[in-house]
């Protein structure tokens, strides 16, 4: 069990490690954002394991996208709750 291919956590670390040169060349402020993206993708390790996709980075990128879209949705909702209802929309 789990001996024929690395665990999902190991795969995740490997994929992250493969981008070490990319990360190194980023500005410090961007590096922190980069790390944050991976930290968010990490929440979906179980789903990535269950998917058992041959190209795991694709799944991790999708997980980042998913978290980003969640964030967009949350911000949009907050924005809508802050804005006064526009008079045209009431028609």
């Amino acid at each position: 069990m789990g001996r024929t291919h690395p665990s999902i956590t190991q795969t995740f670390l490997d994929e992250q490690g493969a981008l070490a040169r990319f990360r190194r060349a980023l500005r410090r402020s961007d590096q922190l954002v980069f790390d944050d993206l991976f930290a968010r993708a990490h929440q979906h390790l179980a789903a990535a394991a269950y998917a058992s996709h041959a190209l795991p980075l694709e799944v991790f990128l999708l997980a980042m996208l998913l978290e980003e879209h969640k964030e967009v949705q949350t911000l949009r909702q907050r924005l809508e709750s802050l804005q006064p209802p526009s008079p045209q929309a009431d028609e």
Partner: protein
Amino acid sequence: MNEIEGWLLDLYPARDGGLTVWLLQQDAQGCVACHALKQSFPIVSYVSGEAPALRAVWRFLRRQPIQARLERCQRRDLFEAQPLTVLKIEVQRPDHHALLVRRLTQAFPDLTYYDLDLPLSLRHAARYGSFATARCHLTVDEDGVIQGWQTLDTPWEIDAPPAPLRSLYLEPDVDPAHAAPSQLTVRAARFSYRLALQPGRPFLLNLRAILRRHDPDLLLTRWGDTWLLPYLLQATQRLGIPLPLSRDPQRGVAFRPERSYFSYGQVIHRGRQAHLFGRWHIDIENAVLYHDYGLEGTLEMARVTSLPLQAAARLSPGSGISAMQIRTALQMGILVPWQKQQAELPKTALDLLASDQGGLVYQPLIGLHEQVAELDFVSMYPSIMARFNISPETIASAAHTQAAVAHLHPLSEASQPALIPQTLSPLLEKRLELKKRLVDLPPADPRRKRYQACASAHKWLLVTCFGYLGYRNARFGRIEAHEAVTAYGREALLRAKEAAEEQGFEVLHLYVDGLWVKKAGATQVADFEPLLEEIARRTGLPIALEGIYRWIAFLPSRQDERLAVPNRYFGVFQDGSLKVRGLELRRRDTPLWIAEVQQAILECLAEAPTAAAARQRLPLILQFVRAALSELKGGRVPPEKLLLAQKLSRELAAYRQPSPAARAARQLQALGKLRRPGQCVRFWYVCEDGGVQAWDSGVLPQPTTLDQGRYRELLLRAVSTLLQPFGIGEKRLRREIAAACPARPLSLWKLPDAGLAARPDSAVRPPAPPPH
């Protein structure tokens, strides 16, 4: 012919052929006696191969001085689709069987052998349904030879009449690994003696008198395997005073050597073993899981596995489950391979990617959650094997397994359950029945302890049966069957998640066989009943509510607090009880002092009825931590509470970068106290001497030599783990602790009058008592 009834104590091959059977009998007056009987018991094994090879075996066996009955017949090998033509070899005497097969396997090493090396007790169990402490009705002739055998109960009965065992407890006054004992405590139900080991002669004579008068069925010792029995044997030889340790006068003590082995990621050490004949010997220091389930659990292990009690006490649960499978195979007429030949089916990389997976393990939502229910599948993997008929022989192809898993259909629709389900079903049923009874029994009921011990023994067997299905060397292991189990498990857990979400629950965490859910307004058991029913309906597997937490905190990783980790959490159930996973206090390498501080903080938090109320206790807890730190600083923490224990993972010479435990073990080695891989080493962190000082090196460390900084760090980390979900992370904790400890010289310098001179010291002391 005599008809007798009694409890089976022991059976083994006799020196003059046949079996020696020890039966415990109780007469009408309640007097107990143990008698030796004899039984004829032929041993059968099988060889398979090409017809000319089998003919050669036939000719070879005919020439041997030991005669065997030979017969050509058909039998089933689990890993073959068709029954095999095999040569059946039946030998009259068990002791001759071993001799004959040794010669045979040397002469014909390339043939496939079956049923060759099976424990005698399993063969007997398959034929007569026997097991240790089984109630038996025997027909015995004038020479004490058993002619008829009827076992009156089964291992699956819950309240079988207990055997009237008489036990004798022997314990030296000190652990022989640390110092030479000088006394032996001898205790039974009605008496207790202390015998001085020196002078040797009166000691042995006294012990012999006690053994003869009391005639115990069970010798329960501490360090009996590793020290006491070897010591006694040496003394009897030196002084020429025989000691009847075994009941069988022809037999002495059988020793098996010590060993270290690797299992489930750990190195385990087992000491030398001392087995007796006609009497049991259990060394509670060397018995497996004795601390967990005690004598009751060990007896239960022997009953359900049919292994001799002395073996069951010292074997891992894995060997137990293996024995049960062999017994089932013998009963079903399935051949038990001697050396397994079967290899894994070829797979593509993509197949492997899809099939070689474990259970589903989610990353929980980090933080504090209130009114959370934990739902657990009951014995999930064994239940899956039993319900979906998973066994080496029911595996057809990857596609077949995949299709069956997707619809949660059994792997095989055959009317008779396969080998593994047939082995597990009675065990699962007994465990469920015990659990049911435990719920209904009043807390003070005397049966409670025994039921719990039995349930615990079953748990260990059921836990290991899954691993053994995937173990290459297990006789009935097959990796595809093992993978099928996890595939069913993932499907069932996902179905449970879907059911929960459809009913409006938020799923906080999923972990192999459990899920943590919450929903606004759901706070009572009844609020979760519909979900439990729906999950049971969708999966067909038993699921139960483990409990409802007042609050539970899922903790982040130590390295990065943005990352969740699956198995680090603590929470309080509605009845106030705690559940803790992955915290320092559960680890053996945590000093008792730190574990106690953590426990006290947890209990303080658990007393609060809500998370908000728990939060209000934080100032009190910080005060308590400050007090604990000042105890450390003042050297008032007893050194034994600062001891750590770590296991050695290899031989000392093999360490390239010695761990603290290895450095401590080297100090002990220099004193002539050897530690083996798998054994624990206890030590303190000190300021010099390579940072550690081994316990048992003869000197206690002074408070001034202890590495206080290191202990302080360990404590702060352990405390911040608990307070983090309540908003006090490691940084803030350090600030809070430092804030209340003003630097002493500064306050002295500021003090205007002498009357306040004592204050800085008292300011460090907590004004409130520790929360307990």
